[in-house]
């Protein structure tokens, strides 16, 4: 399955120089990787299964946010046959949280309970998926924030660097 990416360019999030490579303006084509990275795939389109699903998602500072538990696609109906020549689907969001359970055991999670990271926040795709924003600004990290605020942050020393 090849996915092409909807580039909703949001250059406010681009702070690192090398990320300039990531945004091609030729529509339809996939993301190109920073040229100097020898581990980057050479192709111009990404295989969602091989290169996105179950990858680690990092925020702007490199803090792990979640794993790509599932993807939200626009332009195809689940179960429907894809006619040859129909326009390729576009990736709209990374899904996480309850989405892992549906991938493990099948079924559908109700749309209201989905935790989505909009694809437009993604700044780079390599062996990890990098976001252009801080983890704390995302719905996807509410559990981490809750545990931090109500449990770990309340234990003495929890907010200090290790000595």
């Amino acid at each position, binding site marked *: 399955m090849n996915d092409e990416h909807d580039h909703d360019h949001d250059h406010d999030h681009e702070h690192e120089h090398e990320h300039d490579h990531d945004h091609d303006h030729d529509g339809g084509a996939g993301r190109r990787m920073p040229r100097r990275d020898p*581990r980057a795939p050479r192709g111009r389109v990404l295989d969602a299964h091989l290169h996105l699903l179950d990858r680690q*998602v990092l925020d702007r500072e490199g*803090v*792990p*946010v*979640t*794993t790509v538990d599932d993807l939200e696609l626009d332009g195809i109906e689940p179960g429907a046959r894809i006619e040859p020549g129909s326009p390729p689907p576009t990736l709209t969001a990374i899904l996480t949280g309850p989405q892992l359970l549906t991938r493990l055991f099948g079924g559908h999670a109700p749309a209201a309970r989905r935790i989505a990271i909009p694809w437009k926040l993604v700044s780079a795709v390599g062996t990890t998926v990098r976001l252009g924003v801080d983890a704390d600004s995302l719905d996807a990290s509410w559990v981490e924030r809750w545990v931090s605020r109500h449990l*770990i942050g309340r234990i003495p*020393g929890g907010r200090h660097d290790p000595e």
Partner: protein
Amino acid sequence: MKNLFAVALGVLTAIGGFVDIGDLVTNAVVGSRFGLGLAWVVLVGVVGICIYAQMSGRVAAVSGRATFEIIRERLGPRAGLANLAASFLINLLTVTAEVGGVALALQLATSVDPGWWIPVAAFGVWIVIWRARFELLENVTGLLGLTLIVFAVALFMLSPDWGELAGQALQPGPPADEPVATYWFYAVALFGAAMTPYEVFFFSSGAIEEKWTEKDLAKSRLNVLVGFPLGGLLSIAIAGCAAVVLLPAAIDVTSLSQVVLPVAEAGGKIALSFVIVGILAATFGAALETTLSSGYTLAQYFGWSWGKFRKPAKAARFHLSMIVCLLIAVAILATGVDPILVTEYSVVFSAVALPLTYLPILIIANDREYMGDRVNGRGMNFVGQVYLVIILAAALAAIPLLIITGAGA
């Protein structure tokens, strides 16, 4: 000079860090029943852990990715979760054994019932994980664990019949009075004790904690290739002491107090104090490593923020899961189960779980997407595959042998 010091420190830490409650107990049990007849297994295990640690350290340093992130990416969520569940549960068993080991070592020093020491030990482990820096905890426990060298000194002081010991070591095979299955059961247990999977979770996650680059690999290779074999020699010395003092007296080791008997016999109170400090440091260090490993595996599978280099509040679920693991370990020990028994089961199940993490590491070490041109060479792959066969054989034989022999009784 500074470099030499760093190298020496790394090697010494690897020696002290190699031995944990599983090695202490299993080697003493085996020594008291088979003499040095299973010393060859320690050698096989040491070479295996060197290969395994070296590969996972290289994968971590080159790709910057930890073991369980990669396992999930490569195996997918389902097989990855099954792998996580098995590895995590066995690691939890090892946490329990190590915390129990700390309590037993404290009992040797104080004769206070281990039931009182268990919560103290678990709290100590937690507070160090909560507050101390990674390098600090690794170096302090590793260096104090080095006092276990007293086992080797004790072996010389006992002035054993070296010819007889060599004869036991060079003529492997079950003795006449022990069933063949029991011999192989202990071979698997000893292999599991030398190649515990947590050492690798810890090693590869530690490489990321300490922000290793490819340059640090040479240093790590030296630490592993020198430190682990010396740790293996220490293991054989533990078995040797038991073979000299306990085997002739028909004492099958069932408790930690018997493990230290030969040392006191050889070196009196001074040697005994060294060995108690060493056991305390080795089990405490391993308790830290296994507890961290349980946090690492969970956080890496689910993509949580992890690492000791962060403030606990910045890796909240990672720290919460470690607290929960320690509480579970205390709860298991509070039932009054013998920590030595937990240890014996943990090493056997470690052997069972080993292929689950070994195979993905072997595959990734050959994956150019992660490794670029630092993939395994032909020689490394050959040895890696030979060990894959050994590891699979041990894993498949472990549970049938456990049942046939009634856990080695």
